[in-house]
C-alpha cells in the first residue's frame, strides 16, 4: 500500500483530470482493490520466476540433481531433453509458464505419470481439509472469544487464555501426535490414525478420515482467532454505543448479538483470513502425519524424490493461494473498517 497517485491531481483546481484519475477519485475503494490485485499479480509473476530459476538453474542442472551419481552422459542428455534443459533459459521459462495455464506440465520424475493428473485430486483433498478446518476453527474461535469477553477475568477466560498461549507455540505434529495417542491408539480407538484413501476416492467419501487432520488444524488456529475476538469484543462491550444501548434498556442478549458482536467480528475477519494462509503451510505436516493424500503430502514426497516438476507446481499453487488470500483479506478488512477506506 505504498504511494496512492489517486489524490495527487486533486489539489490542482481548474485542471481537468484524465478519465482514469477521475475514476480513481470517485471510487477510492475500487482503485485500491485494483491496485492490490495488480500488485498481487506482479508478486505472483516474480514468485513464478523465483521458483523456476531456483529449481531449474541454481543447482547447475536439474537433470544432474535428479540422476545424482547414477548420471551417465546418455541418461543426462535424455533427461535434459525431457526437461527442455537443452533450450534457452527464456524458452524454458515460457514453456513452463504456459504449461501452468494449459495443464501441460510434463511428467513426474518419480513415476513418469502426468504431473497434473497426480496433483489435481490432491488439490481437491487439500482444499476440503483447509476449508473445513478454517470454517470450524473460525466459528469455535469466535464463540470462545466472545464468551471469554463476556465473562472477562472469570474462570472460563483464564482457562482459555492459558490454553491459547500454550497452544499457539506448539508444532502441528505435536498436536497431531497427541490426538492420535488420545483417540486412535493408546488411550482409545475411536478414530482411524491414518487417513488412507483408495485411489479414485475423495475425502468426503469417508468423512471419518477427515476428523483428526481437521481437528489438528482447528486446534492450531483457534487460539489466534480466540485472542483477537476476545480483545475486539471487550472493546465493543466497553464502547459508548453499547453503554447507550444499556441506558436505553436494551436487553442483554440483544446488546451482545446485535450491538457488540457484529462490530467485534469485523476486525476478527482479517485474522481469520490470515489463518487460512497459515493453513496453506500447516497442511504440509498434518497431511504427512495422517498420510492424508493432499498436496502437502505430495510436496513432501516430491522433495524426497527430487521430483522437480511436481515441486514447482505445488509451490506455485500454494503461493498463488497465499497471494490471493492476502488480497482478499486486505479488501475484506477495508470493507469492514470504513475509516481505512480513506486513501492515505
Amino acid at each position, binding site marked *: 500500500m505504498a504511494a496512492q497517485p489517486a489524490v495527487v491531481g486533486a489539489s490542482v483546481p481548474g485542471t481537468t483530470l484524465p478519465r482514469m484519475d477521475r475514476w480513481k477519485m470517485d471510487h477510492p475503494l475500487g482503485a485500491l482493490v485494483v491496485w492490490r490485485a495488480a500488485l498481487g499479480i506482479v508478486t505472483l509473476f516474480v514468485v513464478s520466476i523465483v521458483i523456476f530459476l531456483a529449481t531449474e538453474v541454481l543447482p547447475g542442472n536439474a537433470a544432474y540433481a535428479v540422476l545424482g551419481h547414477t548420471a551417465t552422459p546418455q541418461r543426462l542428455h535424455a533427461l535434459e531433453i525431457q526437461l527442455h534443459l537443452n533450450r534457452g533459459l527464456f524458452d524454458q521459462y515460457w514453456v513452463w509458464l504456459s504449461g501452468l495455464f494449459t495443464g501441460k506440465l510434463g511428467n513426474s520424475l518419480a513415476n513418469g505419470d502426468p504431473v497434473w493428473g497426480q496433483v489435481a485430486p490432491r488439490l481437491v483433498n487439500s482444499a476440503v481439509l483447509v476449508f473445513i478446518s478454517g470454517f470450524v476453527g473460525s466459528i469455535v474461535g469466535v464463540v470462545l472469544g466472545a464468551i471469554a469477553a463476556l465473562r472477562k477475568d472469570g474462570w472460563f477466560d483464564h482457562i482459555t487464555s492459558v490454553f491459547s498461549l500454550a497452544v499457539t507455540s*506448539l508444532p502441528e505434529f505435536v498436536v497431531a501426535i497427541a490426538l492420535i495417542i488420545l483417540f486412535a491408539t493408546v488411550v482409545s480407538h475411536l478414530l482411524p490414525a491414518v487417513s488412507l484413501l483408495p485411489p479414485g476416492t475423495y475425502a468426503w467419501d469417508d468423512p471419518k478420515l477427515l476428523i483428526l487432520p481437521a481437528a489438528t488444524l482447528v486446534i492450531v488456529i483457534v487460539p489466534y482467532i480466540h485472542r483477537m475476538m476476545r480483545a475486539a469484543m471487550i472493546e465493543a462491550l466497553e464502547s459508548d454505543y453499547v453503554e447507550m444501548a444499556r441506558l436505553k434498556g436494551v436487553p442483554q442478549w440483544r446488546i451482545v448479538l446485535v450491538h457488540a458482536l457484529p462490530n467485534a467480528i469485523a476486525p476478527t475477519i482479517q485474522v481469520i483470513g490470515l489463518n487460512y494462509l497459515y493453513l496453506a503451510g500447516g497442511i504440509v505436516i498434518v497431511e504427512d502425519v495422517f498420510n492424508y493424500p493432499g498436496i502437502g503430502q505430495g510436496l513432501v514426497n516430491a522433495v524426497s524424490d527430487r521430483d522437480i516438476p511436481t515441486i514447482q507446481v505445488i509451490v506455485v499453487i500454494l503461493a498463488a493461494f497465499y497471494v490471493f488470500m492476502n488480497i482478499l483479506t486486505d479488501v475484506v478488512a477495508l470493507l469492514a473498517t470504513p475509516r481505512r477506506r480513506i486513501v492515505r
Partner: protein
Amino acid sequence: MAATTLPAPTRRRTKKPPRHQWLATLGAAARTRRGAIGLGLAGFVVLVAVIGPSVEPYSSTAFVTTPFSQPTGQFLLGGDTLGRDVLSRVLDGGWVLLIMAACATAFGVIVGATAGISAAYLRGKVDGIIMRTVDVILAFPSLVFALLLVSILGPKLWLIVLAVGFTHAPAVARVLRSATLDISERDYVKAVELQGVKPSKVMRSEILPNLISPLMVETGLRLTWSIVLMAGLNFLGFGQPPPTPNWGYMIQENRIGLSSNPWAVIVPAALIALLTIGTNTYTDAVARVAIGVERKPEQAALIDELPIGQAA
C-alpha cells in the same frame, strides 16, 4: 501464587543500569510469574539436551533391546523401532536442534534487522527493493519456502539453518522497518545527521540502541518459530542423517509402534512441546515488560509470521 521473597529493603534498587538495559528487562521478565514459568520450562529442556549426551546410559545408536519393548528397570523408556534405548536417544537427540534453532534465529534476526533498518532509514530505492523482496518471500508459507530451499540445495545441516533463518528475515524486517520509521524522525537523529555523520554510523549508534525492545521480542518469537520449523523439518526427515537421534525424527520413526511403546513418541514430543511453550511464554513476559502494555492479539506469538497486508 508462587512464594516470592522480597529483597532486603536496604538494597539500592534504583540504580540506573545505563549500558545493559536489555539485561535488566530480561531479568525483570524472569521475575514475573509468567516469565518464571516460561524460563523454567525452557531451561529444563535445555538442561536435558545439554547434559543429556554425557549421562546417557547406553550408546544412542547401539541395538540393546527388542524393538518397541515396554519400559523396564534396565531400559527406563523402553526400546525404539530398531531396539535402541529410547532414554539414551532422547538424551542425545536435542542439542543439535537447539544449536541449529539458535543459529537460524540469529541469522534471521541479523539479516532481517539490517534489511528493515536500512529500508526505513535510507528510503527511496533501497526501501522499494527490500520491501518488494520481502513481499515475494512472504508469498510462500515458511515451511514450504524452507522445503523448497532444502530440495534445491540438499538436506545439509547448515543449509537447513540458512533456509529456516531466511524465512524469518522478512517478518523481522517488516517489524523493524516500522519501528525505525518512527525513530528516524526524532530530533536526536536529525541532530546527528546535521553533523554529517555517515548513514551507516547513524543506524548503528543512534537507531539500533533504540530498537532493543522490539528486537528482543522479535528474537524471542523467531526462536520459538525456529524450533517449531526446525523440529517440523526434522520430523519430515530433513535433518541429521539416520542413525543420529533427533527428537523430531524420533516421533516419525517410532509412531508405527505407538501401541507397543508409546514412550518412544511421547517423550520427544513432550520435550519439544515444553520447549516451545517455554520460549513463547517467556517471550510473552519479556514483551509485557519491554513494551509495557499487553500486546495486541494480532501481534501475538507467531501471528506476525503471516504476511499482514496492512503492516507495510
